[in-house]
């Protein structure tokens, strides 16, 4: 009897004791971000579970993207801290991959699709390391996973919005991270791209990786995500989609901005 079976056997004999709780993929405590005097994100606590797909949901200007960027240290925070799999952010950089909004860069930049994906290998290649054939193979494999294999040598200015989003996702895949953080990955993309992206993200979850996405389309929250975090400058609610994404919490998040009938429909009859 090998060690693995043995441990299984002993565990089976025991009452289901609380396993040493796996640390959450991302935990944020007391995060406050302010442009000038009024806070964009105020004193927010949030916990995103490992091996699950989580949505960050809230109205325009609610600080969704700001929250994500500040949690990753991309923009300065006034207060608060973030841990990734129980470690301080800077010790866990190799385990996270970030996908910015595609509108945040200039797509006329002189570079090819493959070179963008190779940027995802920056930490592995290092400042002075050589980019080898195996790095290029890795990058091409990531392009295959998002259905863009034929586009490797294109100038990035020739891509559609959906293709740009796929390239950004491929770059993050190249990082081979355990936590993927995406800012509005479905904004302004076509249906085929949305399907391709969600398939990749569900595949990542299937491999035990965590996905956290800023998401604006309330109608797909239920079908895409396991966990939801509702924010409007402050934290409104968080938890499993089934119990947290309710008419009541949506009303609190959006105030009067959603019609009552629409809210009930989105909340899937729970209300």
């Amino acid at each position, binding site marked *: 009897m090998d060690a693995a079976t043995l441990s299984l056997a002993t565990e089976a004999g025991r009452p289901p004791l609380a396993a040493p709780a796996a640390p959450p993929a991302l935990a944020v405590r007391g995060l406050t971000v302010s442009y000038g005097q009024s806070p964009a994100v105020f004193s927010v606590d949030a916990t995103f579970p490992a091996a699950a797909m989580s949505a960050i949901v809230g109205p325009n200007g609610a600080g969704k993207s700001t929250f994500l960027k500040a949690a990753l240290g991309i923009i300065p925070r006034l207060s608060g801290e973030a841990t990734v799999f129980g470690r301080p952010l*800077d010790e866990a950089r190799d385990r996270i991959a970030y996908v910015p909004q595609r509108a945040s860069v200039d797509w006329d930049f002189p570079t090819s699709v493959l*070179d963008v994906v190779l*940027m995802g290998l920056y930490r592995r290649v290092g*400042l002075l390391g050589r980019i080898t054939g195996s790095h290029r193979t890795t990058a091409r494999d990531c392009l295959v996973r998002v259905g863009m294999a034929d586009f490797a040598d294109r100038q990035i200015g020739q891509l*559609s*919005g959906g293709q740009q989003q796929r390239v950004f996702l491929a770059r993050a895949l190249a990082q081979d991270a355990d936590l993927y953080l995406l800012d509005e990955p479905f904004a302004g993309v076509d249906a*085929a791209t949305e399907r391709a992206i969600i398939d990749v993200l569900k595949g990542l979850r299937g491999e035990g990786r965590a996905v956290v996405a800023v998401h604006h389309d309330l109608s797909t929250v239920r079908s895409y995500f396991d966990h939801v975090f509702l924010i409007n400058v402050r934290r409104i609610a968080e938890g499993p989609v089934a119990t947290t994404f309710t008419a009541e919490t949506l009303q609190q998040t959006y105030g009067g901005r959603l019609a009552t009938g629409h809210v009930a429909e989105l909340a899937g009859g729970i209300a």
Partner: protein
Amino acid sequence: MTSLFDALLLQSGYNAALVAIGAALLGFAGGAAGTFLFLRKRALVSDAMAHATLPGVGLAFILMVALGGDGRSLPILLAGSAVTAILGLLAVDWIVRHTRLPEDAAIGAVLSVFFGIGVVLLTVVQTMSAGRQAGLEDFLLGATAGMLFADAMTIATGGGLAVLAVWLLRRPMTLVAFDAEYAASLGLDTRRIDLAIMALVMAVTVVGLKIVGLVMIVALLIIPPVIARFWTDRSGRMIWGAGLAGGLSGYLGAAISASAQDLPTGPIIVLVASALFFLSLLLAPVRGVLAALIRHLRFQARVHRRQGLLAIARGEPIHDPLTLRVLRREGLIRPDGVATDAGRGVAAKIARDERRWDIAREVHQDAGLTGRYDGLTPIEEVFTSDEIALFDRHLGAPRPVRG
């Protein structure tokens, strides 16, 4: 003309050869470092920095004279210029971060204030009796007459170090120039990398003061990357292409100015760079004006070809002479205007792609994509195969064209 050829072949004297080599190295460093300034879209900051060197030159001179020197040591003058250039850069940075002023306004303010102080200091220097102040104005427009071997070595060393730094830092600098947020998510200190880009630009500016002068050094940082951008779509090639364009401008400019009396070096270098710019503007393969014209004529022919094929698919007659000529040339219609088998086959494919595009426009509510539709680009170049398969599910089986 013999003097120009002599100068080009480094045969017109020791000093001229020194200047030509120095200017080539400076141009190379300027182009390579300037590429990142251009890609980061901060070209104008370098102008503020260049003008901010002038008070440093004046102060360094006054300080040296006050300490009993003759005030003409190039390394010390350049060190002084570097100090005020950094102050100018920090001033722009501070204004942008702590006020609501946009960067262009901050640049304008800093540039004029520092330049004004510099001109006042030069006037003070001219009224000083001590020291041999003649030559400080040369830092405005550059001058190379009487350049010493040590001066050339200062320029060569500074330029060489700048190129080495560009090579070492090319990856993080490219990453920050393309996508600073992503770079930050990888744990890169983007502010420090931005400072490194500026430090490189400052190094080139200071080193180039003697040859090109502070008014025109900006041209050596900006024009070469612009030239290179015409010829390549890859940032890596752009660095060395810009270096080459800058080096060539520096070398040719210095040689031309050495071939005749009283031709100023800096302006000639900039004029040579401008000439290369206009050549590129005209002749570059994709982004050039001539290429655009040829593309337009080909485009016209393709439009006529497509109109003709659509007419064949619909069984309509064709009257336009250009359309008939284009179709006949490809053997898609017979001389009498009746479609050949090949013509009917192509017409069927065109008609089907047209309907695929109709579907595409409904499926993709995406301005970037609808912009790609010109009725001419094969649909396979715009959409992935799974996307096209999706359109075909909406369409049903292909229809043949009856002749």
